[in-house]
């Protein structure tokens, strides 16, 4: 019986591993879901839009150069259910974004969570 249960567990785990996550609308195949990227920066725009939201973030590198990243987040209908409002992020806010970056290296990504300056965390839902 123990072997049987273990086999079921292994099979279930395997199925989870090979499953392609079915995220909303356009999927996530453009992003490297096996790697997390963390960047600190200043929000330049927060788009509370459908079918996806977007966060634009200016990031200053060690050499002083500024690069704008655009990271997608879930739509308002998903985010309000986990505590977001259209005022959650504002231009000028200093935040840390955790996200999966584009596979091709472009400054784009899909959000995992935002950490605000006061330490509050907002998870993404898609």
């Amino acid at each position, binding site marked *: 019986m123990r072997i049987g249960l273990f086999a079921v567990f292994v099979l279930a785990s395997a199925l989870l*591993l090979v499953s392609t996550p079915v995220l909303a609308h356009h999927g996530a*195949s453009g992003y490297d879901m096996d790697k997390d990227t963390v960047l600190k920066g200043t929000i330049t725009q927060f788009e509370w839009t459908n079918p996806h939201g977007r966060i634009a973030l200016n990031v200053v590198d060690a050499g002083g150069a500024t690069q704008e990243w655009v990271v997608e987040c879930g739509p308002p209908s998903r985010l309000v259910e986990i505590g977001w409002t259209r005022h959650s992020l504002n231009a000028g806010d200093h935040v840390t974004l*955790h996200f999966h970056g584009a596979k091709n290296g472009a400054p784009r990504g899909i959000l995992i969570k935002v950490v605000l300056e006061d330490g509050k965390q907002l998870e993404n839902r898609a």
Partner: protein
Amino acid sequence: MRDRLGLSACFLFAGLAIAPVLRAQAAAPSGSAKNTGSDHVDLSGVWGNLGAAVPAAGAAQPAGPYMLSPKGTMQDAGTPADGVPYQPWAMKKLLAERPPSGPRATFDSSTDPNILYCELYGVPRIYNSPSKFKFVQTPEAVYILYEYGVVWRVVWLNRKHSDDPDPSYMGESIGRYEGKDTFVVDSIGFNDKTWLDSTGRPHSEKLHVIEKFRRLGPDKLEMGIAIDDPGAYSATWSYPTRTVASAKDFAREVWPCSVRENNEFNESVEKSTTAPAKK
């Protein structure tokens, strides 16, 4: 601004259109499988997929909102090995599509009519969305309201299908109650512009969909979907039966697909993400 006014007008119109049925349901008991005195199932409540957190690397991937393969697997969904009896043209069309989900998922040059044009998902693809749906039962019809796309269907009771329904995105639906716990929706009259699901499976205008909803208790609804399309498949086949949970706050925020905002997203995110990798 004009876009927002247009969207607001659409919601206002939709709200006015369904206000009578919402009032009718407000007087009905909700969230319970108890015997309400009627001879058929009480479908009140809010049902569906609640969405999932985007997982960090190494975390368990969320299960798909729908098992996309008849065999109950995901890794072969939308491939020649998935157990679906495709006719040759349907298989050829499937393999030419560039879908957002399944093992052939791609971001690049999508052919998904919803991603490209915000066209309606149609039936049964509407259940692929990680969003919620709700039944509004009246004596003459059952209305099914969907958060994604902000669409609704009317499922007529006590009548037969039209002889020659105009092809449409959501089809023509006739419903019947079975026993005290089940509601069956029989739909025909679809156009062939939609996909059956997010792996890109095609269908013809001969599509006939049978949805079966069985209430298992206060918080559980079992769903079965059968596909009968002699124009695209050599036999009737079914998606695996699944159970959806009850939820709260239906349509606290609806989920429209704004063509303008979707185009802006495609321009600012998708095109950059699918451009050739930097050297």
